[in-house]
Each structure stands twice: as C-alpha cells, then as structure tokens.
C-alpha cells in the first residue's frame, strides 16, 4: 500500500494498523502513516475519511483500539493533549485554541510561566517571548492581548508555542481555512523554515493548490482506510482527486437523457450575474431553467455550499445581481427566497434544518405556514392531511406525525425536510448534500425522488460529493475549486471523468463553453 520509497532510517513517526471505532462505526481501520524528519506531509481525504480521528488519536484525545504508534522507534500512547505535548507532538487547529484575552507572552508561556520567588517573572517572560517570535519574523507587542492580532498571526504564535515546547511533530489542522493568500504565504514560509530544522509537519487541508505548493508527501484516507502514500512530485492532480473520491474512472451506468437543446431555449427561472461574497465564494454566473437539475461539484471547502447559501439568501451576497423571471430581486434573507418559491435543505440538518422538539407535522408545515404568514394559520386538520400525505409519499418512518422530529433517524429527518419544502410547491429546490449520513435504503429513495421532481418541472440545484449520483441525474454540472466556479459541463459532457478532471485542473477559469 505504501510508496516504494523506503525511509532512510527510523522514521520520526510510524503509525501501523491504527484502528478506532465509535459505537460500531469503524472510523479508522488498520491505517498506516509514516512521517519522516524534516518533511511536510499532507493528510488528505473527504468528510468522514478519518483524518480528524487519526489526529485526535495521535494527540491523545481518543484512545486507539488497535495498532501501534512509534515516535522515533519508541512506542507511545498519549492519554491527553498535554501528554502528547510532552512526547513532542504539538497541534495547531484552524480555530486557534489559545486565550484571546491574555497577552501574547502569557499565551506563549501558559502553564509554564518563568517563575521567580514564587511569582511569575513578567520581565523574563516578555524577553523570552520576543526571542521566540523573532525567527518567525514577528516583531509585535508581546504584552498586547492575543485577540487583537489577525488569525494568521495568532496561528503563527500557536505554532511558535508548540515548537518552543520542543515539538518534533507538528500537526496543522486546516490552518489556512480562514487566511487570505498573503497570510498563507507567510505561514508556508514558517513551515518551510521548521522543515529545514528537521521538524515533521502533518498538514491537513482541503486546498489542493496548497498541497502541491508546500508538501513533500501525501497520504490519502477514505472511509477510515488508507488509500495510499505518494510523493507529491510523482502524483498528478487527477490521480490525487481520484484517490480522494475513490472513483474508478469509468463511464457512469445510467443517465436521464434530457434534450439540452429544448431546455436551453427556455428562459431561465433564476439567473445570477457576478454573484459572490468576499471570503466566501468568488463572483459567479449561474442560470437555472425550469425542469433542469444543476449540480455543484467540487471538493469540500471549494465553495459549493457557500454558493447555494448565497442563492437562498442564508448568507448575503455583497456583489452581483440576481433575477427571477427576468426581474431583478433582492435576497436579504431566506424569507425573500421562500417568497420567490425557493426551498433549501441545508447540509447541517440538525443545526439549520430541523426544529428538533417540534413534531414531524409541525416541521413539515413550517415553511408553508411561514409563507402564508402568522395571521392565516393552516387549520389543524389540513396540517394533518399534509403531514400524512408526505409521510406516505416519502415513506417517512415514524409511528405518527406527532412524534418530535429529533427522535427520527437522520434519513427520515431529511425526508421530512424535503416534505417541508415540497409542501410549499417550490419552483427551485436547493439540496445541499441530500444523501449525506443516511442509510442506503433512504439514499436510493431520495435519488428516485430527485428524478421524479425534475420530471415534474421543478428546478433543482444540488450539491453532492457523490459524483455517480450527480452524473445520474444532472443535466448540467458546475465544477468548483478553491471558492471559484471553474467549469460548467452540459448534457453529454457530464461524466465522472470530466468532473474529476475539472476539479483537478490547474488552469483557473476553464470555461468549457460560453
């Protein structure tokens, strides 16, 4: 499984056959991972691949079920983050886990302040803090509260703290997610310096460009298993994406054939021009015609979810314009979208979808009721009819409509949310990862439903990581990479290979057709 290049001597960190299960779900299954001295090693994989489980097992947050972890040949089993730190494993998360209200110096020496006569020696602390930050090119006021600095600076301070606590292994968990290009460059410089000092860096990210810019090696996980380890220089992007998504690049089995010519002649239902939001997604153009399924494909963090959130008004676009039926509209919030006949099933069902303690019935009629306004309550009998109809239609497994929705399984919650929007007879339904985290049976039913809906003339905008699904039901696929719409595939062009190729391609803005 591992690459043919054998490590020169004892690797810095050698993980062999690591396993971890949560309540029967195998999060890690016999994973190997090798980190050498002085290398930057990307740990990649989509959601649920097992990256964060691996890191948390390594840093002692979780205890492993099986396998070995050896640091410079010596077996270790940290029981907590502090013990991991003593064992020279330091971690910096995307959300800096330092204390923003304390000063920079206090943060650097938290829990290990220099003492004199039983008191904190503030003078020594400040001097040493400045000395620590010097090699990172940070000459800042170390007595200022940490929170006053940018996330990038805070991250470098967190790295400096970890390295100063004699880290040999430095784990950077999505450090660049909220940084701009210039800040990323500074961070990479720091990473390269540390590499030259022999420190091994594990770099977790979703940005492929960054992987190719700074990493020596790549390890890919998928569904808790090791897919492989490669040298970055020897792994073309296309192969990397294929490794991550796990597709044998073959033509998809079946596709609904929609005559593109006929559909293209229809006027768009909704049209977005130069629509975008700073630090979320670059401006994009998007037309959606009645009766068509448009899919957004791309890796995690590529801007898929951000795009649909803008379209539904969950986030407010700060540029561009939107028209519906040719008329310019303002999307100040979801209410505007709902009134225009849009519906949206969000990716995070629990947080943004269901209203947990309300019954299945109340959850189903909520959007319809909201659109009618509070003054026109839907009579109880009518509510029950609607709920019962959709429970039957979508086969929602619940003893009755009065059960609190939070007691249903994930797939049934998802179907109830679909019912919520179908009850409003939407013109455009937006589904963000409609099949995520639900069992195989419900999965197939939701796919069938999507096909039926688009046959009924409703427009669908779908975000999904499941490329076969996308290929099966989409007439058009917009491909995103690094928060940018990079390609659009239509009709006969839609295939798994083309999508993967577009995700992997380096040339920005390869507009397939205009």
């Amino acid at each position, binding site marked *: 499984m591992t690459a043919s290049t054998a490590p020169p001597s004892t690797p810095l960190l050698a993980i062999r056959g690591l396993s971890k299960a949560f*309540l029967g*779900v195998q*999060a890690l299954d016999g994973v190997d991972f090798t980190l050498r001295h002085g290398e930057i090693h990307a740990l990649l*994989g*989509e*959601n*649920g*691949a097992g990256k964060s489980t691996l890191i948390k097992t390594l840093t002692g947050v979780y205890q492993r079920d099986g396998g070995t972890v050896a640091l410079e040949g010596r077996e270790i089993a940290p029981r907590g983050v502090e013990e991991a730190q003593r064992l020279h494993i330091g971690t910096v998360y995307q959300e800096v886990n330092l204390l923003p209200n304390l000063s920079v110096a206090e943060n650097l020496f938290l829990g290990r302040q220099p003492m004199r006569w039983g008191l904190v020696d503030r003078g020594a602390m400040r001097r040493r803090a400045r000395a620590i930050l010097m090699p990172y090119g940070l000459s800042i006021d170390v007595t200022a509260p940490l929170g006053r600095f940018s996330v990038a600076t805070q991250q470098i301070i967190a790295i400096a703290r970890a390295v100063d606590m004699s880290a040999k292994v430095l784990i950077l968990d999505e450090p660049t997610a909220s940084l701009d290009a210039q800040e990323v460059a500074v961070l990479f410089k720091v990473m390269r310096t540390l590499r030259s000092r022999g420190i091994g860096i594990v770099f977790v990210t979703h940005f492929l460009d960054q992987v190719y810019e700074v990493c020596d090696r790549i390890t890919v996980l*998928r*569904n*808790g298993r090791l897919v492989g380890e490669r040298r970055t220089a020897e792994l073309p992007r296309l192969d990397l994406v294929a490794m*991550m*998504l796990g597709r044998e690049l073959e033509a*998809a*089995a079946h596709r609904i054939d929609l005559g593109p010519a006929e559909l293209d002649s229809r006027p768009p239902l909704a049209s977005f021009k130069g629509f975008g939001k700073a630090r979320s997604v670059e401006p994009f153009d998007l037309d959606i015609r009645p009766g068509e399924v448009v899919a957004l494909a791309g890796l995690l963090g590529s801007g898929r979810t951000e795009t649909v959130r803008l379209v539904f008004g969950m986030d407010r676009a700060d540029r561009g314009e939107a028209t519906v039926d040719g008329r310019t509209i303002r999307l100040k*919030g*979801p*209410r505007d*979208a*709902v*009134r225009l006949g849009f519906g*949206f099933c*969000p990716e995070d069902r629990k*947080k*943004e*979808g*269901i*209203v*947990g*303690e*309300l*019954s299945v019935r*109340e959850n189903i009629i*909520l*959007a319809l*009721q*909201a659109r*009618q*306004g*509070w*003054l*026109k*309550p*839907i009579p109880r009998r009518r509510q029950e009819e609607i709920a019962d109809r959709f429970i039957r239609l979508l086969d929602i497994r619940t*003893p009755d409509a*009065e*059960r*609190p929705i939070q*007691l249903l399984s*994930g797939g049934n919650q998802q179907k109830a949310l679909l019912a*919520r929007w179908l009850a409003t007879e939407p013109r455009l339904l937006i589904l963000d*990862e409609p*099949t*995520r*985290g*639900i*069992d195989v049976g419900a*999965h197939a039913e939701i796919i069938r439903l999507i096909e039926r809906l688009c046959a009924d003339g409703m427009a669908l905008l779908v975000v999904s*990581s*499941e490329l076969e699904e996308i290929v099966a039901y989409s007439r058009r696929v917009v491909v995103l990479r690094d928060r940018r719409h990079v390609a659009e595939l239509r009709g006969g062009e839609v295939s798994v290979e083309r999508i993967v190729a577009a995700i992997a391609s380096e040339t920005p803005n390869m507009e397939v057709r205009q």
Partner: protein
Amino acid sequence: MTLSAPGPARNLPQYGALVAVLLANWLLFPDFFAIRLQDGRLFGSLIDVVNRGAPVALLAIGMTMVIATRGVDLSVGAVMAISGAVAATMTGAGWGLPAVLAASLAAGLLCGLWNGLLVAVLRIQPIIATLILMVAGRGIAQLVTEGQIVTFTSPALAFIGGGSFLTVPMPVVITIALLAVTALLVRATALGLMIEAVGINRLSSAGAGVNTPVILVAVYVWCGLCAAVAGLIVTADIRGADANNAGLWLELDAILAVVVGGTSLLGGRFGLVLSVVGALIIQAMNTGILLSGFKPEFNLIVKAGVLLVVLLLQSPTLTLFLPRPKGARPMGAVKPPVAPTSGGAKP
C-alpha cells in the same frame, strides 16, 4: 428539554402543587376556603390569593412567550413602575381615564419595543439587553414622578385595582381577559408555533422563512404591555405610584412562575395557563405564610423549598425514575455518529 408529551400527566406537578399548597393553607387556617359576598364583591382568603396574584400572573403571561423564544425579560418590574408613574402623574395632572390608560399602556409597549429591538436587531443577549431597562426603567419612572410618591384620588383609576365586575375583583377580571386574549392571539393564529420554532432553533426557523426578528420583537412588545397592565393595577390598588418600589423584584417571581409552569428556559413549548398556575402557587404560599402568623422571613425559605419540589418533579433526571410517557426516550440516550458516506457508496 420538553419532549412534547401531551396529556394531563405532564401538567400534574403544577396542578398538584397548587392543590397541595391550598390544602396546606386550609390546614393552617380552616377558614381558608370560606368565601363571602359583601357589597357586591367576593371576599375571602382564596379570592385574596387570586387577587394579589394578578400582577405576577400578568407578568408571567408576557414572560412565558419571551422565555419560549429562549429569552428572558428582566425589565418587567421597572416597566410596571414606569406605567404606574405615568398613570398616577397624568391622573394628578387632570387627564381623563382613557388618555391615562392609553399613555401608560403605550409606555409599556414602547419599553417592550426597545427590548425587542435590542434582542432581535442588535442581537444582544436577552438577559443583558433587558437588564439595561431594568436599571434605567426605575430612573425613568422617578423622572416621571419627579422623585415623589405621587398619589391620586380618581375613583375611575382606583376602580381598576379595587373595583369588581360581576362580584369578581377587577385585577382578576383583567388577568383572565388578558390571558384569554393572549391565548387567542397565539393559538388561534400560527404565532404560537412560530414562537416555539424560533425558541427551539432560530437558524432553522429563519431558514424555513419564519420572520424571526418580527416574532422576537412581538413577544417583547407583548411582555411590555403585560407589565404595563400589571403596573396599572398595582398603582390603582395603592392609589399612588412609588417609582422605587412598584414591581420591585417581581420580574424574578414572574420568571419563577413561568418555570414552575413548565416552560423551559431553553425555549420551545410553552403553556400560558400553566404559567398563571405557577403565579398562583407562588401567591398561595405568600398568603398562607402571612395567614399562619409565621414571621415573614419564613416566607422566603418555605417558598424556596416548595419551588424546589415542583422543579424536581419536572426534572428530566428525576423523571427517569418515574413511569415515562409514551414516545419519550431516556435522557442521555446516545445516538451513534453518522456513518461516513461522502467517499463511499459504490454504485
């Protein structure tokens, strides 16, 4: 967490506690349930409980919906003082009853609007947002009364506090009327559903198209109105406005009444009638301790004890040991993490 287990079983702690407290009062004071008619108005200890409990009951009605949105309104006591001060001062200045009522109710609405805007638009945490008016409100009331205790002699205004309608004391009539109007407003429309939805999950509700800011502002405005009515009753009862002491600490009694009534501070399902029952439990205890001849100091401790019992009866931890209503699952039941599917699912 209030899993909606409908039926009388859920309301048992509240009604049980009310009956128990009333029975305890009766044991201490055998004439407790005696009611007599005098000058066309009912008198008796039981009537006294309902009459004296009216202001807190009124506050509890408004507070219930605020708490259902996962908020809290600490300013209701101060709003009572403001509306009372406005009423007494204007009456003293010779205004007629309609103008006086309109002005003091408007003051309450305005206070509620202020709170609602802070919470809904500026997104300040409710406890802090309403703390502002809790502090400033008494100052405003003192400005209105110019630091004096303003008394008045208008029998029309005094009627609100001391009069009766069909032998029932006016405060009770007003409370029942406001309870009925409020219940109608939230349950005969979709407001109740929306209030509960916003309280349980503001993001999801907004995503479904619910106008969350308007709902939030509305509940605070209504709470302000309820507080103003309570303030009017207190002022009318003592025929004067005391900006320093009118409604002092009553916000805490109101919150307690709502919680005793079974509405969770975490928002969601609410019961208006149960909150009023909660207010009556509190008042029945106050009255009982006064009647018993104990020192008033006991009042607070006995009150705390009884409330603890009622709250324990509702606590999820304790409910585990009691027979569970159908459809509820044991608290702390762990759901397995969602199985990863993003990379998997072979065709």
